[in-house]
């Protein structure tokens, strides 16, 4: 356009300045007109082209606006779906967390229930097995002591039969409560082993402490005085079998050994008359209830003393009350009264035909009688606390003779004094019946256990009044057990 305008100006300028021939001017005019026409037409074309382009652009804009609208709606839908999905994920996650916590809670409860005894709330047999394994590993790895004690409710079946199972359950619950009270420490745990049997694990305590705890438990149950009239004691009692492993030097080589020994001990406690603690200690006192490993010369000396009973003092061992507040604990140079039974049984001249069971029963009987004598000496004032008691045993005319006395005063007594009158006019069986009657009437049951033992062993009791001037209630009492056929008396 600019070029055409310049050409036109040049043409006009040339026409006025040069004054050329008309043909030339016409030609120039024609050229100019053509140029002008061309320019105008070109402008029209360009304008039309621009208009068409504009239309296209406008259409595209509308199309894009429509597309943008659709895209916005899609984005909004996607945003909604995204929000939904986020909420869904949150819901699922939180729901999963809640359910997970719920399952864990239930699992924990079920696991606790699987290890608990529902009646007593103590641990059950499964819990005991797990705890024992742990306790044994701890004791072995650290060379520490471990005690296991079986506790059995005496005459529980007859208690159930007489008072009904609900009452039996209550008695079990009471025992569990007392067990928990005695245990005290968190590391000491009690378990219901099955039926009327309970078991405790006492790690890292001495044999003395274990025996004291066991005795304390027995006494607590005794003191509750839960009536059980058809039994010799007339009340609910327990028998305890205790096995103590003093460390890695002990005879117990496995947890099973320890439990088996405790089980044997509770059996022994029952065979000795129940309501007592029977124990086996290894690497503690240097003695176990099963077999005391005495030097041969001491055995021979004691045997001689026994046979000299007819002319001398027999075998005399002095016992001092233990410093522990337990009447049943007596010690002689570190040995318990129970040890006396081992001591004697170990050198008794048994016949070859005597079975191990017969020897064990005799040993238990000796232990029982020795304990009875010691208890009664204290109970009836033969010996004050702190004074020694001498238990004398002898083989006399084919009989094992027991007596307990205070060496200072030479008073000798057992609770059998209560039955002197009865025995004076009858047999041991009569006295036994009289004692049962007295007990059922709520009277004194002293001597009942001993009388039962005497019947089992066909024992005799001899007595005589002390010389004039002494306490008339005190009698010199001897328990004479006819030496069983299993003992040689030659």
């Amino acid at each position, binding site marked *: 356009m600019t070029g055409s305008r310049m050409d036109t100006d040049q043409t006009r300028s040339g026409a006025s300045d040069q004054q050329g021939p008309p043909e030339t001017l016409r030609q120039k005019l024609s050229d100019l007109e053509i140029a002008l026409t061309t320019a105008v037409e070109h402008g029209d074309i360009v304008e039309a082209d621009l208009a068409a382009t504009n239309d296209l652009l406008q259409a595209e804009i509308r199309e894009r606006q429509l597309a943008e609208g659709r895209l916005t709606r899609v984005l909004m839908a996607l945003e909604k779906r995204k929000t939904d999905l986020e909420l869904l994920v*949150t819901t699922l996650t939180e*729901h999963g967390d*809640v359910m997970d916590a719920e399952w864990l809670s239930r699992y924990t409860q079920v696991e606790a229930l699987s290890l608990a005894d529902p009646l007593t709330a103590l641990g059950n047999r499964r819990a005991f097995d797990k705890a024992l394994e742990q306790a044994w590993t701890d004791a072995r790895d650290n060379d520490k002591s471990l005690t296991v004690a079986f506790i059995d409710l005496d005459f529980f079946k007859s208690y159930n039969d007489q008072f009904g199972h609900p009452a039996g359950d209550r008695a079990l619950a009471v025992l569990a409560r007392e067990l928990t009270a005695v245990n005290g420490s968190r590391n000491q745990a009690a378990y219901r082993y099955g039926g009327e049997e309970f078991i405790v694990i006492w790690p890292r305590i001495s044999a003395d402490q274990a025996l004291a705890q066991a005795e304390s438990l027995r006494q607590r149950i005794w003191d509750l005085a839960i009536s059980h009239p058809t039994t010799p004691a007339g009340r609910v009692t327990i028998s305890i079998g205790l096995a103590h492993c003093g460390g890695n030097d002990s005879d117990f080589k496995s947890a099973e050994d320890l439990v088996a020994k405790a089980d044997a001990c509770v059996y022994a406690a029952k065979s000795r008359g129940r309501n007592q603690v029977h124990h086996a200690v290894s690497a503690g006192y240097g003695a176990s209830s099963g077999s005391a490993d005495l030097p041969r010369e001491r055995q021979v000396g004691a045997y001689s003393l026994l046979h000299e009973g007819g002319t001398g003092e027999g075998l005399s061992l002095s016992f001092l009350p233990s410093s522990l507040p337990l009447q049943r604990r007596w010690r002689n140079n570190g040995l318990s009264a129970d040890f006396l039974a081992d001591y004697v049984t170990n050198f008794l001249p048994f016949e070859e035909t005597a079975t191990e069971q017969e020897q064990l029963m005799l040993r238990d009987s000796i232990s029982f009688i020795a304990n009875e004598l010691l208890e009664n000496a204290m109970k009836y004032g033969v010996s004050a606390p702190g004074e020694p008691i001498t238990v004398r045993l002898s083989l006399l005319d084919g009989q094992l003779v027991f007596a307990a006395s205070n060496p200072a005063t030479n008073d000798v007594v057992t609770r059998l004094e209560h039955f002197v009158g009865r025995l004076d006019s009858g047999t041991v069986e009569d006295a036994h019946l009289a004692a049962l009657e007295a007990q059922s009437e709520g009277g004194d049951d002293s001597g009942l256990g001993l009388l039962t033992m005497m019947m089992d062993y066909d024992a005799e009791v001899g007595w005589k009044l002390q010389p004039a001037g002494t306490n008339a209630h005190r009698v010199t009492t001897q328990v004479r057990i006819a030496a069983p056929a299993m003992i040689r008396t030659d």
Partner: protein
Amino acid sequence: MSEQTPPDAPPAYTLDVDDATNTIRVSGTLRLNGVAAYQPITDTLMENALSWPQCVLDLSGLAFLNSSGIAMLSRFVIDMRNREDASLTIIGSKSVVWQGKSLRNLQRLMPSLVLELK
């Protein structure tokens, strides 16, 4: 009224449809194996919910619901929300631990959902 007792998911769940009150009650323990296993329940819910002017879903007796179950329930709620004329009420129980949080989340999916925690 229908009752289902899957043999592999004791204790069983119960699904009751009460046309008189437009209520679907689900109770017991729901722990079907996977989302696909919940399809029959989803179908039952949708079929009834869409035929009623207002649907009440009573979950107060549903003690346990696994993750597939809550996913199914979430989808049901979304479907209901996407239908402008749908009305949904869910009844839950405060004593069932999972319902407090999970049912409130369902309400976030469908703001018009009426939630009653007894």
